[in-house]
């Protein structure tokens, strides 16, 4: 009974499933915490956001408090940097603020706060919900009240829910007379937004402002961007203040939301904060280390292959695709039933083909084999001993490669230049084996063996030449483990090989 439970096949199946689950988790982990991607050459957008706080001191001790994005929220912060000479800097993590304090200052002050964040789109829009503040109805005089009601009545005709209706009417071109009358003469974004909030309060909808930065290429010293946040009875929802579009835009980073202010300056006047944003592009792999550090997973990263120097990484990139080539060889031999020369020879040829390009490589390899077979045929008349003979073939191959490479360089024939990429010893053994098969079993057997080896090499090439597949086997190298157990499981496959269906077809029932 126990024996039945633990047959080799069952154990291997279990291990295969476990390794697949592990690979799945590994992929999840790497994508989530390291920012890996299934696509190769993926670049991540990294933004440098500069917040410049400026104010004119009043002569009293200075205390500046700036709302900053909190790391745990909408996106990931790679680095923070502060340039504030003469100030004591303190982070208030709980409230998501940074505070600068100093004694009295004289000249106009500039404090810089630089934030490096990466575009973490998948994590966006997950806002924590806070309690709703008590609704404060605006206090209006008769005329204002009338105008407000007029606007609300007009807004009824706009699309969407109430916040969208209000945003809609405030952005209509040209503005309706009522709205025009309602707004002050010289109005800025913030005042406009505050008016909208007032109107929403009349409709008993809690609303508030959200300060942040809309990441745009080369943004220079702009005021904080605004969004409107309204409570829909269950949760806070963000609305674009110009279009009424709901939800957090992809390129918007929130600095402050809720009742607190964006910037408080004690001991200064005419304070303002200006933002600039600069984008740089970094490959995901390069960034992965930074991300891991930011997430506190540095140690795991250091002990993965991605913590290695690039040179080693590139070498390993080739290694990690090998198991896939091996799997193909196993499939070709044990499931399809193709006979090849040497077990892994086709895979090694395929590796070379990736470097040379398929057709050029194939042509170059055929020339080497053909010339090699010719020379080997001459050699067989000499009745040399085995080791000296195969050694001679190796040297033949080296000579052919030299000649071809020079010829390729002089003539520009790509196939000839490809010669240098083929493994010498493997090529020599192919020639030796083919030559022996030729002598003993005839030319057709020898050529068919070469042909099937090349077919297997071509199939392997098709798989491993894909940039995608090479990237995935490297970035998610747990797949190697899955392939290992798949190969082991194939070691218990007892079904017919594809070629046997033809070979034994005369024995089929009903013939």
């Amino acid at each position, binding site marked *: 009974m126990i024996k039945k439970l633990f047959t080799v096949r069952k154990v291997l199946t279990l291990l295969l499933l476990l390794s697949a689950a592990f690979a799945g988790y590994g992929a999840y982990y790497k994508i989530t915490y390291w920012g890996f991607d299934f696509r190769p050459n993926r670049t991540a957008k990294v933004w440098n956001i500069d917040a410049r706080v400026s104010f004119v001191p009043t002569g009293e001790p200075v205390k500046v408090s700036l709302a900053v994005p909190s790391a745990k929220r909408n996106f990931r912060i790679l680095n923070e940097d502060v340039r504030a000479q003469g100030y004591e800097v303190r982070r208030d993590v709980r409230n998501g603020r940074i505070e600068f304090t100093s004694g009295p200052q004289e000249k106009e002050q500039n404090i810089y706060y630089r934030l490096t964040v990466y575009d973490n789109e998948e994590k966006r829009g997950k806002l924590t919900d806070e309690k709703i503040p008590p609704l404060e109805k605006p206090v209006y005089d008769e005329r204002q009240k009338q105008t407000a009601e007029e606007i609300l009545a007009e807004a009824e005709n706009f699309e969407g829910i109430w916040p969208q209706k209000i945003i809609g009417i405030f952005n209509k071109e040209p503005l309706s007379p009522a709205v025009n009358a309602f707004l002050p003469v010289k109005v800025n974004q913030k005042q406009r937004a505050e008016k909208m909030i007032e109107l929403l309060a009349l409709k008993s909808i809690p609303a508030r402002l959200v300060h942040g930065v809309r990441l745009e290429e080369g943004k220079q010293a702009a005021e904080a961007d605004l969004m409107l946040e309204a409570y829909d009875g269950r949760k806070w929802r963000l609305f674009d203040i110009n279009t009424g579009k709901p939800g957090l835009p992809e390129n918007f980073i929130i600095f402050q939301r809720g009742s607190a202010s964006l910037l408080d300056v004690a001991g200064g006047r005419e304070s303002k904060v200006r933002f600039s944003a600069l984008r740089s592009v970094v490959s995901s792999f390069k960034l992965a280390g930074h991300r891991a550090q930011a997430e506190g997973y540095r140690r795991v990263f250091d002990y993965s292959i991605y913590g290695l120097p690039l040179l080693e990484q590139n070498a390993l990139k080739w290694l990690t695709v090998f198991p896939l080539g091996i799997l193909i060889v196993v499939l070709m031999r044990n499931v399809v*039933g193709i006979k090849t020369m040497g077990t892994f020879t086709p895979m090694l040829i395929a590796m070379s083909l990736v470097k040379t390009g398929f057709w050029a490589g194939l042509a170059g390899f055929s020339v080497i084999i053909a010339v090699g077979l010719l020379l080997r045929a001459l050699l067989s008349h000499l009745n040399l001993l085995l080791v000296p003979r195969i050694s001679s073939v190796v040297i033949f191959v080296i000579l052919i490669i030299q000649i071809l490479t020079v010829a390729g360089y002089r003539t520009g024939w790509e196939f000839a230049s490809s010669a240098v990429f083929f493994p010498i010893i493997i090529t020599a053994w192919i020639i030796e084996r083919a030559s022996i098969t030729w002598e003993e079993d*005839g030319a057709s057997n020898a050529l068919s063996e070469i042909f099937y080896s090349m077919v297997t090499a071509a199939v392997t090439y098709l798989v491993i030449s894909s940039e995608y597949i090479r990237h995935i086997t490297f970035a998610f190298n747990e797949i190697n483990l899955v392939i290992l157990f798949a190969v082991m499981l194939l070691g218990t496959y*007892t079904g017919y*090989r594809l070629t046997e*269906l033809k*070979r034994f077809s*005369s*024995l*089929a*029932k009903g013939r």
Partner: protein
Amino acid sequence: MFGWLKNYSLPSALKANGVLGMNARNYKIIAPQNDRRLYPLVDDKVKTKVLAGKAGINTPRLIGVIEYQHQVKDFPDVIKNAPQFVIKPAHGSGGKGVLVVNRWEEDRFFTASGKVLSFREVFGHISNTLSGLFSLGGQYDVALIEETVNFSDLFKNFSYQGVPDVRIIVYKGYPAMAMMRLATAESGGRANLHQGAVGVGLDIRSGKTLRAVMHNRPVSVHPDTGADLSKLVVPFWREHLLIGAKAYEMTGLGYLGADIVLDRDRGPMMLELNARPGLAIQIANGSGLATVVKKIEKTYPVGLTPEERVGYILNAVS
């Protein structure tokens, strides 16, 4: 467009006839039945010969063994008293590197395939053998020189040059399936089916032809000699089966192939044993090996002597 598909059959159709596939042979039969440590007993023809002698199995008499390159020059001494002989690599397979010398004089060796070789050429052949040219995996080898088999004339018309031999598959000591392999012009006088030799399936109880195939297709006459293959009957059938049955005790291999030739004077003689015999025998027999293996496994008695097992086979009701 899909005409080529007709050449393929469904796995279920093969399974229904008990056809044994390569993977199943390796995983279900060879792996559990043949202990890898026993392989050298059959891979090395010198060892096989010694064992066979102890087990009372006839093999061609050994003339000499050349183990090292420096012994090659002693070759003339070895064959001094042998008017004809065969040189074989001890680790060869599929007839590779076998040199049959029918007669020789001074510096001229007349081979069975009609070539005349000089001393130097024969030396070269032995030297090649020692350096592993014909052995599995190219490892260093030993050259075996043994007496030529005096082939029975009974099969003269059934083979083009070369030696017709009987291959018996033995499962757990029971002869399971048998065929005779006949060389053709195409196979170059060799008895390998994939090279174009004719395979004649033999009834395991009588040694009579079941059917014959060449290149996996049924044939009724030998392509070169025109002999009617259905007339083929192997004499001394019991003795043939006995060699196969004894090979089980001799080697301990649960699945083996015994290659047997018929000598005019000494009767059936074992040429070599194979721990991984191929599956082409199924095509020659027109039936699946898995069926027979299952039958032996399920119903045949265990603990019998080779003679009793052969008796059981000969008397079995099929």
